[in-house]
Every structure is written in C-alpha cells, then in structure tokens.
C-alpha cells in the first residue's frame, strides 16, 4: 500500500487519462451508434445493407483485433494518430455497433400505432421521434445502454496494449520500475487495486443508470412500469454487448 501512496501522482495521472478516454468513447460511441442506427433504419437498400453488415462485422470481430487493426492500419491512410486517439476511435466504432443494436431494438419496441397517431396529428418525422417515439423507447434503451457504457469504460484498458498512458499502462510501468529497483514484484497489489478502481467506476455508472431508468419509468403506473422494466430486461438479455 505504501508503494501505491508513494506513486499516487503517477497513478492518478493514469486514472485521469482513463477518465478522459472514457468520456471520449462514451460520446464517440453514442455518435457512432446514432449514425449506424440511421443507416440501419434508412430506406435506401444499399445504405441499409452496408450499415447492417458493418454492425455485424464489428460485433463479431474480437475487440482486441479491432483496436490493433485501427492502430496499425490508420497510419497507412496518411493519418498519423497517437495511441490515445486511435484506441478511442476503435472503441467508439465498436461501441457504436453495439449501441446501434440497442437503439434499434428500443425504437422498434414502440408500437406502430404511436407513430401513426403522431402523423395524424401533423407531427413531422423529427418531432415524432423526439416527442413521441424516443420518450417511450427510453425505458427499453436505458438499461442495456448503461451496460454498454460500463463495457466502454472497461474497454479503455485496451489502450495499454497500444501504449496509451492510461491507468493500466501506468500500473504496468510502476510494476516494471519497482521490480527492477527493489526486486520482488508488487503485481498482485497493483493489478488488484486497478481492478477495484474499475469496479468502483462501473458500479457508480450503474447506480446513476438505475436513477435515470427510474426517471423514465415515472410516467407509467406501477404495474405498466414494471411491465416496461421487464420488457427492457428481456431485450437487455437478448442483445447483451458482445465483447
């Protein structure tokens, strides 16, 4: 424990980098998810098929391969990216594919009648989506989406493989240094603590997510709220994030 305290500034810098990456992939992942959902639900057949294929491809390939692929291939396209951004890009696209699946299932869970009624009231497509479909889809979207966000935070640890200076990488450096200087590896202590830090982060996200979920269930009476919750968890199980 002394060791962790002694190098607290170094480890903290890693944690901050991890939080930065998490924020970037959460935003980037959501952006990609919205783009891909628009692609999947688009009318033109070619666009529709292409986005669907992209989503399936990203969900079927191991995330490790996607991260390495982006890291090694991007410089060839002339974009010299640093580890931080190439890792964020890869994780965002992966998160987008999983997120698109969640958004699509959520939107599909709202009955067709709702959209028809909105159209009958003269709502345009954007208004219908924002004021009618989305609020009703939220109880179905939020639980799996929170799960996706925790998966994204966990995925940022892959930055260590390509050399981003995030929490896991700082832990590795710390272990190498102390093993050389003092002999005897503190690996179990360092990695154990990192596990606890990630667990705390993910638990916090889940707690906030549960609050948001309650907020969106509020308009429903107790019984139908429970129904929506059940449906949400059913879908959650069916489309669980693929690593």
């Amino acid at each position: 424990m002394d060791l962790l305290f002694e190098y607290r500034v170094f480890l903290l810098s890693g944690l901050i980098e991890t939080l930065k990456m998490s924020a970037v992939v959460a935003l980037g992942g959501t952006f990609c998810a919205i783009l891909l959902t628009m692609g999947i639900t688009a009318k033109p057949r070619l666009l529709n098929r292409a986005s669907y294929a992209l989503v399936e491809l990203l969900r079927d390939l191991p995330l490790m391969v996607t991260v390495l692929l982006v890291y090694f291939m991007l410089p060839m396209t002339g974009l010299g990216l640093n580890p931080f951004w190439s890792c964020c890009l890869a994780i965002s696209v992966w998160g987008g594919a999983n997120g698109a699946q969640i958004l699509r299932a959520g939107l599909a869970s709202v009955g067709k009648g709702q959209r028809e009624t909105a159209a009958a009231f003269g709502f345009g497509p954007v208004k219908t989506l924002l004021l009618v479909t989305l609020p009703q889809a939220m109880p179905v979207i939020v639980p799996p989406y929170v799960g996706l966000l925790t998966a994204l935070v966990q995925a940022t640890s892959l930055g260590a493989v390509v050399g981003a200076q995030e929490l896991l990488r700082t832990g590795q450096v710390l272990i190498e240094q102390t093993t050389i200087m003092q002999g005897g590896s503190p690996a179990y202590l360092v990695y154990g603590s990192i596990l606890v830090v990630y667990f705390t982060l993910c638990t916090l996200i889940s707690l906030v997510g549960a609050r948001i979920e309650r907020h969106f269930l509020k308009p429903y009476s107790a019984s139908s709220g429970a129904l929506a919750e059940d449906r949400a968890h059913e879908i959650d199980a069916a489309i669980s994030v693929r690593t």
Partner: protein
Amino acid sequence: MTVIDWGYILAAFPDLMRGLGMTLMVSLLAILFSLLLGLAGCALRVSGIRPLSYAMRGYVEFIRGTPYLVQIFFVFYGLPSLGFTLSIFWSGVLALTIWASAFHIESFRAGLASVGREMHDASASLGLRRLPHALLVVAPIALRSALPSTLNTVVGTIKNSAYLQAIGLVELTFVAVDRIAQDFRSTEMFLSICVIYLVVILGVSALGHRLERRLNRPYGSR
C-alpha cells in the same frame, strides 16, 4: 491503398493455422471448464445458503464490473507473487474460465428463474421427488431458456481469447501482430485474421443456432 500480396498470405498460412490451433485449444478448454464452473456456481447461487449465495453474486458482479484485460494481467503477473505460478497457456485458460463462468452463472440463474411456479406445483402433485424433479423437469426447461445467452458467452470466450496475445500466448492475433512487427504487412495479416475469426465465430454461432432449433423442436417451430 496498397495492393494485397496474396503470396505473402499463402506463405504465412501455416503460421496462422498454428495460431488458430492455439486459439481453439485455449477456448475449448476454457469453454469446458467455465460451463462446469458455471453450473456449480449457479447451484451455489440458488442453494439458499446465504453466505455462498452472496459470494457467488459478488463474484459475478465483480467479474462483470472489471476489464477482462486487467483480470488476465492479475492472473498472469499477480498470482506468481502470491506464490501461485502458471504457464502462459494455463494462465490464459484460467483467466478465460474465470471471466466466462461469471457470465454462465448469470445466464443459468436467469434460466432457472424462468421456470414457472406451476412446474413445481405440477411435479409436487405428481409425487416427483426433489432429484428427479430437478433433473427431469427443471433442468431441461431452464437450460433451454438459458441457451441463447450461454451461446453468446461461448462465442465471447473464443473472441476474448484474442486478449491473451497481451501476455504472449502465441494464438492467432499474436501470430499476426508478430509478423507485422517483422514484415510490416499489416493489410495482409489483418485481412487474414479477420476472415479466419469471422469463419470460426460465425461457424460456431451457426452450430449454436442449429442446437437451439433442435432443442426447441418439442415446442413447435419457433
């Protein structure tokens, strides 16, 4: 973009196949062990013995709430300093097993929860004892409804075996990255391993779907 050098892929093919062999070997062992551990863990989870049930719940929550890569490093680098040394191969199997069994426990538990109360009542009224009731009534129904998420975890185990390249296990991803470091043929290597992973993963998924359809036959076409 550069033109793909097919000759290079052909030359690398034997190496890639050896890597694939390792990927499949590690995954297969981990799938086997994790299914067994998952069943045992689920039994403890629903045993009604408070401390054991809470311990299993905590295990599942912790594994699902932490990055898999850190778990691997903890197993491979951390356990030896606690006096528990394993080879790269067995560290990989252990880490994959720990990860997958947490997910299996959860899907088996959800499967058990899906068995309706009326099943228990029906068994009781037929005079079935506990063991035959569990094995002949509950298990077939519970395992069927747990199958989709279990298959998802099984496929996930194969995909997650790619993470083991980080501790130096010479599996498919490691072979590709190793060759890229020597020959800089990243297009050729990534194209190859993406195709190989897709074939394996889609193949296993398809087998799983067949199994699902076969098992659901008594309930009509679904």
